[in-house]
């Protein structure tokens, strides 16, 4: 196994991780701030991808598609928050689970009703397509490099927003005590709608960016949703930093596990068994990672112990 291949796989893992971070950041933000387990987060990812595909298809512009994805997901998020979630803040967590589960059903089938049952087309724009050569002779798709860049930029922006701005401080204060921050004159409902829309927009952005290299189809949000949950739990719920580290860990584990586990097994068994058994173990790898992390650190890597 050559150095180039290993380096390329690490890049792939990073890129996957950065994309997961976009999903996970919104989820962890919403959970941290509102204590809400939002199963419908994956639906917002799907909304973003469909909006991007529809608009890019109609206008031929990928950038307009991205804008559409952000807008559509943010608007959908705001609507969900105002129409449903807001009525459930005082309710049991479990009611929120049921409500957001119901939202998944509505969104998935609603999308299929609106866009039909076949996958949509969304492609990489010309100016970002094709491979580039990196130092060391690695051929790497430009678009994936752009994804890494976009993800890191969002991560930095989000960190600044949460840690350095007054809104961020108020959001974190709301995390600690929602009633109290309202009693101090902060419009917490608006702040929540904003946070929800922001989280949704991040999911929508991820959906659109990933949609260009994947299949834009109904149900595309669910596998990512599970992964995003794994990420925020590994990182520690509510922690943006945790989500970032968790996302990279999961991205790398998933990518490298699928490739290197079968190779490792080939050392001890015949190639065909190695590839099936290796693939089975690899599909469990992130769950194994997560249970190990939680068994050692029951509140994730950067979770508060409360």
């Amino acid at each position: 196994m050559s150095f180039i291949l290993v380096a390329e796989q690490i890049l792939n893992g990073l890129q996957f991780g950065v994309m997961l971070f976009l999903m996970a950041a919104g989820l962890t933000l919403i959970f941290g701030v509102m204590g809400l387990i939002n199963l419908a987060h994956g639906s917002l990812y799907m909304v973003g991808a469909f909006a991007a595909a529809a608009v890019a298809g109609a206008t031929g512009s990928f950038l307009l598609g991205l804008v559409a994805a952000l807008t559509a997901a943010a608007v959908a998020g705001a609507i969900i928050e105002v129409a449903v979630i807001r009525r459930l803040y005082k309710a049991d967590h479990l009611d929120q689970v049921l409500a957001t589960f119901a939202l998944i059903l509505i969104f998935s089938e609603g999308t299929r009703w609106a866009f039909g049952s076949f996958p949509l087309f969304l492609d990489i724009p010309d100016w970002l397509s094709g491979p580039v050569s990196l130092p060391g002779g690695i051929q790497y798709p430009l678009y994936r490099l752009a994804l890494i860049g976009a993800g890191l930029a969002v991560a930095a922006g989000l960190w600044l927003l949460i840690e350095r701005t007054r809104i961020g401080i108020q959001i974190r204060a709301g995390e600690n005590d929602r009633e109290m921050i309202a009693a101090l004159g902060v419009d917490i409902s608006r702040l929540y709608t904003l946070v929800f829309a922001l989280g949704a927009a991040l999911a929508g952005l991820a959906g659109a960016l990933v949609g260009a290299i994947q299949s834009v189809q109904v149900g595309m949000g669910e596998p990512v949703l599970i992964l995003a949950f794994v990420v925020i739990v590994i990182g520690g719920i509510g922690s943006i930093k945790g989500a970032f580290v968790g996302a990279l860990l999961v991205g790398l584990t998933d990518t490298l596990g699928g490739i290197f586990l079968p190779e490792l097994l080939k050392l001890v068994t015949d190639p065909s068994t190695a590839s099936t058994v290796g693939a089975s173990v690899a599909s469990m790898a992130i769950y194994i990672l997560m249970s190990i992390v939680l068994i050692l650190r029951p509140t994730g890597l950067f979770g508060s112990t409360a």
Partner: protein
Amino acid sequence: MIPERLLNALILAGLLAVPLWALAADEPFTITLATRVVILALAAVGLNIALGIGGLVSLGHAAFFGIGGYAMGILAHHAQTYTALDLGLFTVSGTKSMPVIWLVATLASMLAALLIGLLSLRTSGVYFIMITLAFGQMFYYFAIGWAEYGGEDGLSIYLRNSFPGLNTLVPIHFFGLCFAVLCLALFLHARLAASPFGLALNAARQVPGRAEAVGLDPKRLKLLAFVVSGAITGLAGALFADLNRFVSPTMFSWHFSGEIMVLVILGGTARVMGPVAGAALYVALEHWLGGLTDYWIIFLGAILLLIVLFARGGIVGMLSGRRQAGD
């Protein structure tokens, strides 16, 4: 408002009356549907013990459901193909006898619940939800890759397993059997909830510190609840496999865990009859809405949403009006 006891009796009576009517009207499928309700309710009763009394929000109960299902599938498969089941140290032959299968399914899921519980109970809250989900997913992917027993295709058992004195192929017999098991489980739940153990578990959920201070060990209480819960859901899995005469990895999928949880919440968390009411409504909706339009799932979602928004405490809570703290 109907008193909860009366409501409970009505729900059970209804569940019994529908298949009896179907028998008279010669609608065997309605009996099958009722059996499905009973078995899903049984799985949810299992979860309700962990979730309702113990506050253990497990999103991995499909693991036990699947283990129960595969216990049935594997034993019956070996009996059907006249092959021996190699357990490493020794081999056993398969069986088509339900009591034996139930015993194995229950024991296997108890063992799994013990292990998963021991590891998972180090965490709490959302972390607990996710770690149980992780264990469920591990089983799921394991089953998909388990070529010996069909991998993702699963295993078909051509004939339903047997129970002494009954012809399980007759729908109403099998229904009666499942219904009896459900009644036992409901009775167990009711007794458990009122027992010293239930009281202690309930307190361990609400105020673990207090439980410790009076000499109780919350972790052990929760672990035991988790094991009992897993065992019941495992038994339901074995019955479900027998209902379908088929097992597959979907029994392990997180959708299933979610669905079991939805049944509990829909019916009313921690209420004895909640799972039954939830399962009955869910299966009925799934069945009747399906005929209306291709996009029926939108309506299913909308109805669930309306129930959460306007019926606090699930169906049983809404009808009985008895408030529970936290509703």
